[in-house]
């Protein structure tokens, strides 16, 4: 027996965690790491290429954008919005989705019907469109982006977890718990939740990647945080306009989004493999 739990011994989990923790640290330490104020404009030095390219300036390691703002500093500060949205929005979506899934799957009947139909209505919308419309109604700002993502993505948890709960509640030990006289609450939290937890954690990790993408999409079309808060999607939208002046400005935020989402996806995939009992059983067989 190793002292480390199984899930920490998986290479994927460690790799994913390393990326995610690194980005989270960058976000936390942004004021210490960034060489410039992210909104500081240097109108004499616009569209500087990265420091290593011809005409680059060591003061701006990754160059400057159309207003002469430091790209590296904006990337570093952009991590704050991305991580904030990833963590808070996913937890919110998980909370709503998981609670409804457990109630619906456990009690069945009209509650299940109602939750199922609500999910159907939600799923009839492409998620991007729904979040855009919600942002129109809510208005821009970090809190509203998070709210919009929670309101759109709870269905991802609800749909998958509900069918898992349906399977688990038919197990003998759940019936046994009821016979022994456990309350519904205790049966759900003590008997069902431990079985659905691995799937929930996996979905949570994947949802964090999705949240990063959705925030980038919303800020790309200017419907996320305001213009004074640097965000990766905004940087992309800005660079798309000046693509011939400075293609580099497009490359860096794309890379940041890719690396962040990759981190969450690898982590999620690793957790799925490490925590899924069925998978490990078939592997052994």
């Amino acid at each position, binding site marked *: 027996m190793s002292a480390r739990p199984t899930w920490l011994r998986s290479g994927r989990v460690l790799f994913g965690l390393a990326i995610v923790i690194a980005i989270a640290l960058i976000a936390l330490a942004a004021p210490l790491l960034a060489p410039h104020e992210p909104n500081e404009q240097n109108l004499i030095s616009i569209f500087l290429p990265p420091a290593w390219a011809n005409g680059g300036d060591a003061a701006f390691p990754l160059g400057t954008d159309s207003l002469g703002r430091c790209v590296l500093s904006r990337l570093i500060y952009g991590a704050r919005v991305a991580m904030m949205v990833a963590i808070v929005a996913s937890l919110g979506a998980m909370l709503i989705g998981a609670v409804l899934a457990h109630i619906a799957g456990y009690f069945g009947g009209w509650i299940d019907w109602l939750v199922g139909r609500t999910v159907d209505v939600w799923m009839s*919308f*492409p998620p*991007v469109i729904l979040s855009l419309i919600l942002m129109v109604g809510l208005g821009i700002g970090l809190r509203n982006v998070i709210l919009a993502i929670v309101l759109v993505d709870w269905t991802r948890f609800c749909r998958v977890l509900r069918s898992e709960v349906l399977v688990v509640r038919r197990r003998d030990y759940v019936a046994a718990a009821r016979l022994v006289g456990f309350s519904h609450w205790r049966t759900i939290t003590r008997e069902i939740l431990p079985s659905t937890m691995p799937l929930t954690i996996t979905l949570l990790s994947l949802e964090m990647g999705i949240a990063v993408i959705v925030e980038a999409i919303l800020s790309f079309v200017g419907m996320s945080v305001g213009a004074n808060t640097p965000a990766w999607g905004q940087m992309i939208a800005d660079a798309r306009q000046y*693509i011939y002046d400075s293609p580099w400005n497009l490359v860096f935020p794309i890379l940041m989004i890719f690396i962040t989402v990759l981190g969450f996806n690898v982590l999620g995939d690793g957790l799925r493999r490490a925590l899924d009992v069925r998978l490990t059983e078939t592997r052994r067989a």
Partner: protein
Amino acid sequence: MTSILSLIARRIFVSVAILVIVSALLFCILRRLPVDPAAMSLPPNATLAEIEAKRHEMGLDLPLFRQYLIWLGQVAYGDLGISIHFRRGVAGLITSTLPATIELAVLAMLIAGALGIAGGLFMFHVRGTAREAVADAGSIALLSLPEFLWGLFFILLFGVALELLPFTGRLSSGFERPVITGFLLLDTLLMRRLDMFWDALKHMILPSLALGLAFSPTIMRVLRSSLIDVYQEDYIHQARLRGLSERRILVHHALKNAILPTLSLMGVQFGFLFGGTLLIEVIYSYPGLGNLMVDAVRNADLPIIQAVGLAYCVVVLAINTVVDALYVVLNPKLRVT
């Protein structure tokens, strides 16, 4: 046959119910918006009394529920209102942009399906070998690149660096855009203008490839895992005992069964993909529903936002109905009800 018809009828009934609920939700969300459509549709020097009169004329002083019923009644007659910004009928704006988006989405789905099935077969083929880890890592990396990042990357690579393909609009300037069906690829073929067809296709390669690539890894992974499941079944062992070749087992026995979960996933994916066209259209200045929507959002053009939101919903529900029907056609187990 009758079971399919009754399924379609049931799906259409459910879809209409969903549409009514969705439209009510949309109506309520958008009424929260702090803009006054009446003031926006008048010249800036209008007096307060004129604005009040306009509000009355537009029915904005009625209770929300009454407003919704009036709107719903108009929609039922195909009247989606007048755009505040463009001063044109919204229905006309949608019929002139929807075909472009559908064309893009269908082409992208074909690409996603082809890549997904090929990739899934490849991943299944290399299972248990050293190449599995590589294929697996590749599919996760693919999964982490959403369509708009592919789109931007392709613009940089094929548009700006290599200058191989165009990346704005649907046609090069100099071509008169034909209006027969609105589906450009179809129209140019109907007109027997192959040069124009080729030009239109060239404009669609990058956006549809970006979308297709982004949605293929999910299909790959589901096909791979359902193939692995199917290969545990007795009929595969039996086929092997009968001396059938591995290729025949795969194509005639395994794939037929493994494709079903893949197909139903593709139905769900098509809904997401259809939403993904929004950003791809913005990035490629492709004149479809997505650009119309984003412009409307920027101009707070309520009638358009409302109608385009509903249009997306109609398309997704229609796709789900078709996929459900296909599922019944392809899965013999579901035919007897």
